[in-house]
Structures are given as C-alpha cells and as structure tokens.
C-alpha cells in the first residue's frame, strides 16, 4: 500500500478505525476509481472488524460513487467486518435515500460516536 493516503485519513476512536474522506467531491469517475482502489486496499490489508467512514468533508456524490461504496462494503463484509457511515450532509445522504440504500445496505449515523455505539 502506498505510504501516503491521497483520498482519506485514518484515526482510531475507541479502538475503531475512522476513515475520514478527503475534501474531494466524489462525482468524477476517474477520482472515484482511484479513491475506491485506495479504500479497498486499506480494507483488504487491515481487515477491520469494525469500520466507520466519516463524510464530513464530502460535498456531493454521484451514482458511480454509490456503486463504489457498495464494492467497499463488500470488501469489509468479505473480511467479516461491519461498515457504518457518519457525518453525511443532507445533500450527500439524499442519493442514498433515493436509491433505497440508506438503512438497508448502509447504516448512516449523525456522528462517529453514535456509529461506534451502534456496533
């Protein structure tokens, strides 16, 4: 894995890794492809049993990004882990709701501590 992460940073909160996505808007496919590669590489290497993704810096997303999130979720689940999402603006959350994924495939919480409490 590359030493320097381009699209996200990671910190541990109560033993749970919290991935904070960078400030890029995830609407451009080439950026989404690279970000997904970096994220899946992290997941495959770390195999976290619990993982929170923090969206506080994400302005808006596309359906391509949603598809990427489904792939990342598959990787987390494939290693026996659980993924939860936090700090999503209404703009970012709306596509997840419209596509019926919020509450079904993805559990979305207001804050990271709430997401961690829900594990």
């Amino acid at each position, binding site marked *: 894995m590359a030493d320097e992460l381009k699209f996200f940073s990671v910190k541990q909160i109560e033993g749970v890794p919290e991935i904070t996505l960078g*400030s890029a*808007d995830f*609407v*451009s*496919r*080439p950026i989404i*492809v690279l970000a*997904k590669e970096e994220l*899946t590489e992290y997941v495959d290497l770390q195999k976290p049993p619990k993982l929170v993704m923090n969206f*506080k*810096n994400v*302005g*808006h*997303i*596309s*359906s*391509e990004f*949603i*598809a990427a999130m*489904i*792939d990342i979720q*598959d990787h987390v689940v494939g290693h026996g882990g659980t993924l939860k999402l936090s700090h999503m603006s*209404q*703009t970012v959350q*709306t*596509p997840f709701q*419209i*596509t*019926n*994924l919020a509450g*079904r*495939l993805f559990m979305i919480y207001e804050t990271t501590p709430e997401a961690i409490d829900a594990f």
Partner: protein
Amino acid sequence: MAEPNHILVVDDSPTQLRQMQLVLEKEGYSVRSAADGKEAMEQIAIDLPMLVITDLQMPEMNGLELVAAVKASTPSLPVILTTSQGSEDIAASALRDGASSYVPKRDMALTLPPVVKQVLSLYEATRFIREVSKFAVESSITLVIGNDEMLVPKVIERLERPMVELDLFDEGERLQIAMALDEALVNAIVHGNLEVSSELRQTEDGKPYTDLIEKRKTESPYKDRRVKVHLHASCQQVKFVICDEGNGFDTAALRDPTDPENLERAGGRGLLLINAFMDEVIHNDCGNEITMLKRKQVDGASD
C-alpha cells in the same frame, strides 16, 4: 443605488474589532462594525458593504449562521471568516457553505490585508457581470464535448452560471441539478458514446469496466462521437437537452434499482437520481437524448 464602499467587521470582542479596524484603516479602507451576526444583517439591509469580515464564535448569530444568511440574501457579497486556533475544520465547512476565505486571528495584521485585497479584486472583476445580469431574462448555451469525463465538472460549472444570473434556484437545488447533470453527462459519454454497460462494473472489482472505457476512447467509431448539451433558462425554469451519438438504450428495460433484489446491482441508479432531482424527464424514442426540466419554486405554490 450607490456602489458599496465600506467593509463591515463583525466580532463580539471590542478589542478584536478595534484591532481589525486599525489593520484595515491603515490600508485605506473605510470600516464599520457590528457586535454579532444579527446586528450585521441589520446593517447589511440598510447599507450594503463591499465585504464582510466576521468572527466565528458570537452570541445571537454566529459566523457560520451569518455566512448562510448573507448567501441567502445577497449571494454576491463576499464574507471572510476570522478563526481562532483549532477551528480550521469549522472554517473549511464555512468555505463550502459560501465563505470566500478565512484568516487566522493569530497573525491578523500580516495576513488580513492581502486576503482582503484578493477577495475585493475578484469582487470588482465580476461587478460588471453582476450588474448586467440583473437585466437578463433568458439565457441559452450549447456545448459540444468529447468523451472526456474530466471535463464534466467544468461543463456543469458553466451550465450553472445562467441559473445564478437568473436567480433561479437556491444552492441546495443547484447542487441537486449538478448531480443530475453529472449523471446525464456521464451516461451520455460512457453508456451512450462509448457503449460500455454498467453491468461490467460488477466484474472483477470493475477493472474490465474502466479498461473498456479507456480502450474505446481511442477506438473508432466511439472516439469520434460527441455529446451535445443545450441549456435554455428563463426566469421560471431551466431545460437541459443532452444528446449522445450512440445507439441509444431502452429505459423501460432497466431494473428497478430500489427493489431489494436489485440493491447491489449496478445500473439504473443514475437515472433514478435524475428523476428525483428534476421536475420532468423525457427520453427520445431512440434513447440517446434526455430532456430534463427544473422549474423555479414559487412561494406558496403547491403541486
């Protein structure tokens, strides 16, 4: 109306206010002050400044709320935030919400003047455009682009301009329109012109999907195809027509992506978002042209 000629500084600390005033007056600016966001909005309503510089933490209405209020009432008025150490995250969030810049309080005397100068020169450069925009009642633009997805954000940015000039939508609505445009443009390039199916995205982590996109960008007939984007905006609505040169597709054949059985399948989500964010969506018979309409909400109107 007279052209704004003063800077409004907002801070609940008289000491900080005085310090900012001194720094700005030394640079030759005329300065007025307010003790919180509420008082600032009252002053803005009476006498429009050319720039607002505000603290983040204040009683009544804080800096973030002030940014939102200014963007709602006077979108072209620039706002600079002053921040204490440790509040960079909040400042970054304010930038996304429409603030022009932020200056750390710790070295105000050094960093404030150049930032003010830069923000004001940008404001001045666009003043003529803003003044003329007040008289715009209709706007049309047609763009013809190649199959470069990296261009899409710039195309969307260009298409947003007439909507801002005609004061058609608020920022939230414009973001939704931007998302719908992104979906439609990427559909036209990837699925239309390059004829790459989203089903391929589910094979081997999506690598065959991205490889085929890159390959077809260099192959005839795909590489020679163009996407035509037409916008027509009036004071009541905006209409986008996006047409590709592919063979078209049958929208009726798409699976319902919200059906629990299809949740993890690729395909159909983009169109679903377009339909959710636009008021009217029409496809031509061939399936290579989409027309999207968004109407301005009139206060008190209901469907």
